[in-house]
């Protein structure tokens, strides 16, 4: 589904400095696979998402999505960001249909699907509420609906639960898995939480910073559906500490 080959990205600052964000990154994501990218801040995780979606061009290397070379943004993708960034003048339903409107499609034709999604994400009854009337977790659910309404095959999530409190965050992780079971998508999910990365993913891509490189890719064989208790499982703990030491050892080298 996604094929990233020898991709490098170098930013040029206003002072003409060159800042390497990611360097010679290779990985693949299969159809309907849930892949998490984990690493400390500054390792180019978010850049990688933008590269895959075509929002920023690669400096070197190639990215293919569904055999198509990515050269510009394409609409077969749903975005969820760290902050919900909803439109305050639109209702929940209006915000979900925002994607449809920007895609130039008829909103009326998607109203029923929007209502289904709102129900699926546990927001039934809130269709006509405004964002300011919702909690942070609920706003993020709306953002997830907005990313799914046009039924994209690829879902890109950039630390989507990073701004939520710990309890809501955990709840949302399982919610996302439940939604994903119902609406299978290929998901590329960026996080800096190692337990979150393991709990959600089929595979965890571990990145190290400056410049962002892929350190290792872990297959997660924990059975699905995932449950909270798995965090106490021995396999989980081993993976957790392995990934942690991988990230921290690279940090020491860097300093």
């Amino acid at each position, binding site marked *: 589904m996604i094929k990233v080959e020898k991709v490098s990205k170098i930013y040029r600052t206003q002072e003409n400095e060159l800042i390497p964000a990611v360097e010679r990154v290779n990985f693949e994501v299969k159809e309907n696979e849930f892949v998490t990218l984990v690493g400390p801040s500054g390792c180019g995780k978010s850049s990688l998402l933008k590269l895959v979606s075509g929002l920023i061009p690669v400096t070197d290397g190639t990215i293919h999505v569904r055999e198509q070379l990515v050269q510009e943004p394409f609409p077969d993708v749903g975005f969820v960001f760290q*902050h919900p960034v909803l439109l305050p003048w639109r209702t929940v339903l209006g915000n979900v249909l925002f*994607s449809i409107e920007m895609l130039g499609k008829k909103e009326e034709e998607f109203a029923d699907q929007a209502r289904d999604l709102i129900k699926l994400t546990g927001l039934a009854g809130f269709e006509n509420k405004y964002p300011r009337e919702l909690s942070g977790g609920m706003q993020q659910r709306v953002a997830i609906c907005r990313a799914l309404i046009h039924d994209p095959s690829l879902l890109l999530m950039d630390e989507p639960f990073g701004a939520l409190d710990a309890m809501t965050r955990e709840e949302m992780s399982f919610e996302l898995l439940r939604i994903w079971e119902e609406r299978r998508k290929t998901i590329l999910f960026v996080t800096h939480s190692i337990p979150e990365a393991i709990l959600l993913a089929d595979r965890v891509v571990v990145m190290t910073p400056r410049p962002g490189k892929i350190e290792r890719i872990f297959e997660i064989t924990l059975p699905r559906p995932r449950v909270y208790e798995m965090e106490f499982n021995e396999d989980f703990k081993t993976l957790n500490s392995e990934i942690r030491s991988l990230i921290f050892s690279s940090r020491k080298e860097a300093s």
Partner: protein
Amino acid sequence: MSWEALYLIFQIPQFVIPAPSGILAETWEWRYRLVGHTWVTLYETLGGFALSVGIGTPLAVMLVYNPTLRNALYPLLVIAQSIPKVAIAPILLLVMGAGEVSKIVVAFLVAFFPIVVDTATGLAGTPSELIDLSRSYRASQFKTFIKVRFPMALPFFFSGLKVAITLAVIGAVVGEFVGSDKGLGYVIVSATSYWKANLAFGAIIILSILAIVLFEIIVVIEKIVCPWYGSEQTH
């Protein structure tokens, strides 16, 4: 009340600072002519304000969308803003004559800067995520502007309008001070030169009421246009 009481106690001469009773009486006496003068100042103010919105808003859009233009124009705008308008008002009157047009232009010059700055700040502050989202849906720049960026910037736009309307009143009066034969500014100047302090104060009070009413009208429009910011309203 206390103002009135001070006169009885200290016997302040009425031609220096008049008592409220005197102001009211004289203003009432002049009411028909004051209505005409108020009307003149009002339409000079609104004319200058309309020009500020009509020119300031597109200018702000251009500044945000075109970095080259921004780098070229912004310093000029700041320089233009730092020239005291009171100082150039006489020159403007010389060029454009003593009619209403010169007052409208002074009001415009005083009022347009906050509209440009506030609108530009609002437009530049669109969350980058929403711009990324719109780009990934391949929505045009124009559509993104209409559907996302401008509505997002509306609270900033309105705060610019609120500052601009009060400045436009000042601009119109400054223009009238410099040279005119109508308007509340003219009333103040001519009344003081004839020692009619009561009337001058009456004109000042009408002017203040005018500014407050215009400001509140914008507040009401803001609440109608963007009710979602209603709870955060501060003024």
